């Protein structure tokens, strides 16, 4: 079935179809409408969900965590300062293996305060242990939302997951998308798998969130680190099942015209669409360019990235966030780490673009590819990090 909806409304619709047991959420631009629309479904009796309109994002995640450990299927939505305010609880939720799905309409962090698209929020959560899916379009955001539940709750995974899409550029855009019937979503997901221990199991009482000191803490953390190794297989299995149902196929990465590309741009979320358009244009001019789009950012797909960039000569990583005082943007650091010991690795450069909703135009992308070609001529990226579309 095709519908034309604003992405936030579409995601609220996906949540209605998922019908989680508990949604605890707090409004924040640009994700507010997700919660707002969903609360209308609750008010209309379309879902049996217990909606907890909490007094802060910190409490949203705290309530989600307790609900998840009680065996409930749990969702929330937030952005920017809200995700930052959850930060403490993000770590605890991941280490507690609570499969909460959080929708994030990615937005810049203050200061200056800004409500527009930027990846600083989700990048700030990159070391929290949450899984992360990223979406270029409304369709992908919808499809990722449904798949995220199944990935997060899989007994081989049991980690919480962020579902990212760009604030305003995507969150407030109206696209025509293909949606599933409610029944299809529910049978695809099935019942939430029962956790081994539940907070509500009074017959078999368990203690959650205990103190572990020098003698055990590190083993807890080592075990957690190990568990991410299962995630990629589950992401692919779920994608395959989803493809059978919808015909829409997803991977860990999306490779766009990479086979013979000399210069490759790595991008996430909506800018990947602009980048693909630009590739088509430049290809007509005979330039061998391609785009690598990251769908699964956490766990970071090191092997897949090595493989996808294996033929490239020059790679420009586009970050929509920056590590202030650090060497580069966060995505670049991770791509560079993935390739550090590769023989014949491509030249690597980083561009910072689109902060605080600054438009990333096709001209910007052309300029970025240009930087990649210039590096090939000169033998290196100089400087390593370039800011694009900014007055200096």
């Amino acid at each position, binding site marked *: 079935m095709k519908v034309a909806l604003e992405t936030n409304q579409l995601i609220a619709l996906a949540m209605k179809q998922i019908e989680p*047991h*508990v949604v*605890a959420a707090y409004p924040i631009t640009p994700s507010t409408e997700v919660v707002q629309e969903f609360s209308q479904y609750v008010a209309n009796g379309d879902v*049996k*969900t*217990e909606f*907890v*309109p*909490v*007094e*802060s994002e*910190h*409490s*949203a995640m*705290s*309530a*989600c*965590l*307790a*609900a*998840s*450990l*009680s*065996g*409930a299927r*749990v969702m929330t939505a937030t952005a920017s300062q809200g995700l930052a305010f959850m930060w*403490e*609880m993000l770590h*605890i939720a991941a280490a507690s293996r609570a499969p909460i799905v959080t929708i994030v309409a990615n937005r810049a962090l203050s200061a200056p305060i800004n409500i527009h698209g930027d990846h600083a929020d989700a990048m700030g959560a990159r070391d929290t242990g949450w899984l992360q899916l990223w979406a270029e379009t409304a369709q992908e955001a919808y499809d990722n939302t449904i798949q995220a539940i199944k990935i997060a709750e899989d007994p081989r995974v049991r980690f919480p997951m962020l579902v990212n899409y760009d604030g305003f550029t995507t969150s407030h855009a109206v696209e025509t998308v293909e949606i599933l019937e409610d029944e299809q979503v529910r049978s695809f997901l099935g*019942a939430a798998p029962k956790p081994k221990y*539940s*907070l*509500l*199991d*009074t017959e078999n*009482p*368990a*203690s*959650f*969130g*205990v*103190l*572990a*000191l020098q003698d*055990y803490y590190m083993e807890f953390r080592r075990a957690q680190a190990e568990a991410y190794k299962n995630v990629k297989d589950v992401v692919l299995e779920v994608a395959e099942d989803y493809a059978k149902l919808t015909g829409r196929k997803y991977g860990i990465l999306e490779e766009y015209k990479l086979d013979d590309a000399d210069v490759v741009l790595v991008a996430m979320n909506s800018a990947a669409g602009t980048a693909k358009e630009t590739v088509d244009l430049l290809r007509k001019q005979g330039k061998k360019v391609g785009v690598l789009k990251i769908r699964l950012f956490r766990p970071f797909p090191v092997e897949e990235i090595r493989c996808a960039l294996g033929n490239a000569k020059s790679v420009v990583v586009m970050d929509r966030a920056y590590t202030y005082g650090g060497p580069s943007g966060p995505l670049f650091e991770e791509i560079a780490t993935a390739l550090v010991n590769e023989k014949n690795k491509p030249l690597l450069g980083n561009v910072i673009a689109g902060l605080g909703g600054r438009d990333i135009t096709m001209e910007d992308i052309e300029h970025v590819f240009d930087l990649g070609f210039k590096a090939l001529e000169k033998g290196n990226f100089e400087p390593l990090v370039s800011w694009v579309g900014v007055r200096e």
Partner: protein
Amino acid sequence: MAVINIKNLTDLEPRFVGGHRLCAGCNEGTIVRQVLLAAHEYEVVVLNATGCLEVTTSVYPYTSWNVPWLHEAFENVAAAASGAEAAYKALKRFGEIPEDKQIKFIAFAGDGGTYDIGLQALSGALERGHSFLYVLLDNEAYMNTGIQRSSSTPKFAWTTTSPVGEVSPGKTQPKKNIVEIVAAHGVPYVATASPSHYVDLMTKVQKALSYDGPTFLAVYSNCNRGHRNDTALSIKVARMAVETNYWPLYEIEEGKYRITYRPRKPQPIEEWLKLQGRFSHLMKPGNQDRVQELQDWVNSKWELLQKKEEFSKTL
């Protein structure tokens, strides 16, 4: 609601067991046992804010809790209780736990986690009307981190961040009134208690649990380390807080005040102060005005409380 019969309660299987690492003479363990024994007719789930109780009872791989127990963080125990209660309601509605299964949620937090860093989460949960009992273990400072002042610390008390010095007589601000703050939310049952008056405490727990909605019990929980009192006298110090009217025992049930214990002859505040090293500077010459100030504060609060009780009778 059954009448509290201590003899029978001692036959019950304990839900909070020994082996924990609370300090010798700490009243928290005593209070938790009293609360859980009073709740023995119900299945309970315990939520615990970060603090002394949490760190001493859950040192992996051990636990003192024979009931489901969750600790998330310091400032959010009321939000955690909200989430657990929401899941309980939802899972019932979805038919995934039996309709007749009844669980009571009990949250424990210290004064830091209640008066200060946890106040917002507490207020939110009270306003939303989640059904849970919040038990405040009020030891009047951040004892777990080493005796730092909180907004619950009484005026003139020594703490490591309200030290006594040449120009400072300890904490310079009076104790915040958390009971009134909670009561202002219009929740059905709010009460104070002390482990020294255990029948009163346990009766209040049972009353609180009989309500479907947020309820609050503020329990005086003196700390030997921070209050600098003899570990053998813990319960005596708690009793003296009541007997001096520093910590009056009362309840606010559906908005109506009732004093549940009235000292026959209220003791002067010195009788409580002198048991505690944190007030030792007040016992030195030249501090009589400060002692009097505390006495006046206690008297005016007690008078006001009695007036509220009187007025409640007209409602």
